[in-house]
């Protein structure tokens, strides 16, 4: 085996970092969608990722549906879970303060995790890679085909959401709720419906993240919390509420982790990401792409 050159090592770190970062970015986007409409940090976001992965495994491996069909059913089921979360845990709260709602999402995440444990048990599950496991070699850099799927889905999700929020009435209505819920209500937007929609959307994106991640890292019932923390970090780094910020934040955290592990001590790779996060927050409290003027109007 020939040794690896420093340049290809660097590119390898970047490729890995971008892939892991893309997952964080998708989780961060999920946080942002709900945050924008409701000002809630949905701490069950990681659970959507876990559910997406495990339901896809169930549909594809256990039930035997073809990949695409399994993908669609899994997205739909997780979306449904997201909508149920809103209807069962968020909407019924009588005098909602942001804090009680956030606590409700914590409760929901525990329920979802526990249910997943009862259904799937505690062992990790594998999913066949979407287009085989033969790695692609590019000038000494090894790329798993699944990496491309992960990054590809991030691109699709980002473009899709940009179009949705800028070009459709529904998307603009949601954005209006995000800007000012009272004014949105005055112009006839059904805010509760928009909240439901935001949960559905972010559940679907979480599910996609989970399904693309599973062939790389397996999936077990316990994975959600860690992904939620990383995704939340990405959302904060990029600026809570900003989609481009979420993508940037996610990719940055992934890159820092990977480069940190590669060039510095790998034991501290989470610390490197956190140090950068803290530095950014010192210099720009609203995050890289966040707007400080806007955050002043938010309750949380």
């Amino acid at each position, binding site marked *: 085996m020939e040794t690896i050159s420093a340049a290809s090592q660097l590119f390898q770190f970047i490729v890995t970092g971008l892939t892991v970062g893309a997952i964080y970015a998708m989780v961060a986007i999920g946080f942002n969608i709900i945050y924008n409409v409701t000002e809630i940090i949905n701490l069950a976001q990681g659970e959507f990722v876990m559910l997406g992965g495990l339901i896809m495994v169930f549909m594809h491996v256990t039930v035997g549906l073809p990949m695409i069909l399994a993908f669609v059913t899994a997205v739909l089921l997780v979306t449904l879970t997201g909508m149920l979360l809103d209807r069962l845990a968020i909407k019924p709260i009588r005098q909602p303060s942001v804090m009680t709602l956030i606590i409700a999402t914590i409760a929901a995440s525990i329920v979802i995790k526990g249910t997943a444990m009862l259904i799937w048990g505690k062992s990790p599950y594998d999913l066949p890679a979407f287009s085989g496991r033969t790695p692609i070699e590019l000038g000494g850099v090894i790329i798993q085909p699944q990496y491309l799927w992960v990054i590809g889905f991030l691109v699709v999700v980002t473009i899709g959401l940009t179009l949705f929020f800028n070009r459709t009435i529904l998307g603009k209505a949601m954005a209006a709720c995000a800007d000012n819920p009272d004014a949105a209500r005055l112009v006839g937007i059904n805010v509760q419906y928009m909240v439901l929609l935001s949960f559905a959307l972010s559940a679907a994106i979480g599910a996609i993240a989970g399904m693309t991640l599973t062939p790389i890292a397996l999936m077990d019932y*316990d994975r959600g919390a860690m992904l939620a923390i990383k995704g939340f970090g990405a959302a904060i780094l990029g600026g809570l509420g900003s989609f481009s910020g979420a993508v940037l934040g996610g990719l940055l955290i992934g890159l820092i982790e*990977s480069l940190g592990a590669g060039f510095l001590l*790998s034991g501290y790779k989470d610390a490197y990401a956190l140090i950068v996060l803290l530095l950014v927050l010192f210099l720009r409290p609203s995050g890289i792409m966040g707007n400080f003027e806007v955050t002043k109007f938010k309750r949380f």
Partner: protein
Amino acid sequence: MVKKSAMALLAGLVIFGFSIQPALATYKVGAIFSVTGGASFLGDPEKKTAQMVVDQINRDGGINGEKIELIVYDDETDPTKCNLHAKKLISQDKVVAVIGPSVSGLSVAIIPVFEKFKTPLVSCAASYKIVYNEKTGKPNKWVFKTPQSDSLAVEAIYTKMQSMGIHKIAILTVTDGYGASGRHELLRLAQAYKMDIVADEKYDPKDADMTAQLTKIKGLAPQAIVNWSVGPTQVTVLRNWRDLGMTPITFFQSHGFGSRKNIELAAGAAEGVFCPLGACNIADLLPEDHPQKQVTMAYQKSYTETYNEPLSSFGGHAWDAIQLVVDALKAVGGDRAKIRDYLENKKGFIGQHGVFNFSPEDHNGLTKEAFQMVVVKDGDWALAK
């Protein structure tokens, strides 16, 4: 007349009731396992195994006619809960001995409770710190453990490496108690076995990808990699190793790799990987005259029949722990101090993970021979030559 016979019946019932009272008395044995939480892959098979063994013994008439009652608590891999359960078992449930916990960190955390309340604990976790008090340089008086210490696994791996002519290695460990303890032993014993550790990399228990660490190792071109982790990461790391085209670098896993499920999950990437395993992982492969052949085959059969799932070697640690307690109960009855003394001097106990020879200096009772070096071949274990 009717009244008289009713009285007689009542008296008879009372006397009969009293007379069967002693037979109803049971030996209460406590168990704390991480049935849920991060270490559930350990606690789940351990709980199932202990319950199965106790049920079998009770079905066969118990110990000298007395039944065993196993009281199992789930510590959820949480030290606080583990501590509470330990105290509850000792003071409220009044058990004669406790088996578990599943995790090293938790086992170490509750040692003081057992030392204070003078109750025997047979831990199912690996770290040598459980049975070694750094202040006194001797084992903790009331604490025993059944799994092989990490140091034995490291010795088994290094011995194998020496025979293969490997001396330049990279180590890769997970940043939890298991990985940290393994890393400590790998570094500590390296010199004695003349191993040159060129890379010392780490990753998180929930990490999705270890390509970065492996790429760095690839640049340093060691002869072998030792990975020390449990859970999904030990599978992911193998896939990354294979995908990066690093198979010419021999891969050693720790004894935590001991489940066929891992080979399956690695989807072909486990081929050629070495790992030291206790006999119960590879019961079928053992030669007929192996001392543990009989017990391991019997355990495998009853476990797979009872739970309809493949055996996990971690369950074997609970088998050893509960059988040791049962053995002590048979010999000396339900006195905590007598059980402790009996365990400390027990020799030649044939368990799932080795032949145990306890002594006042050694509360684990195993040597590196408790490990068989196996290699993954055609998707299954094979004894390494």
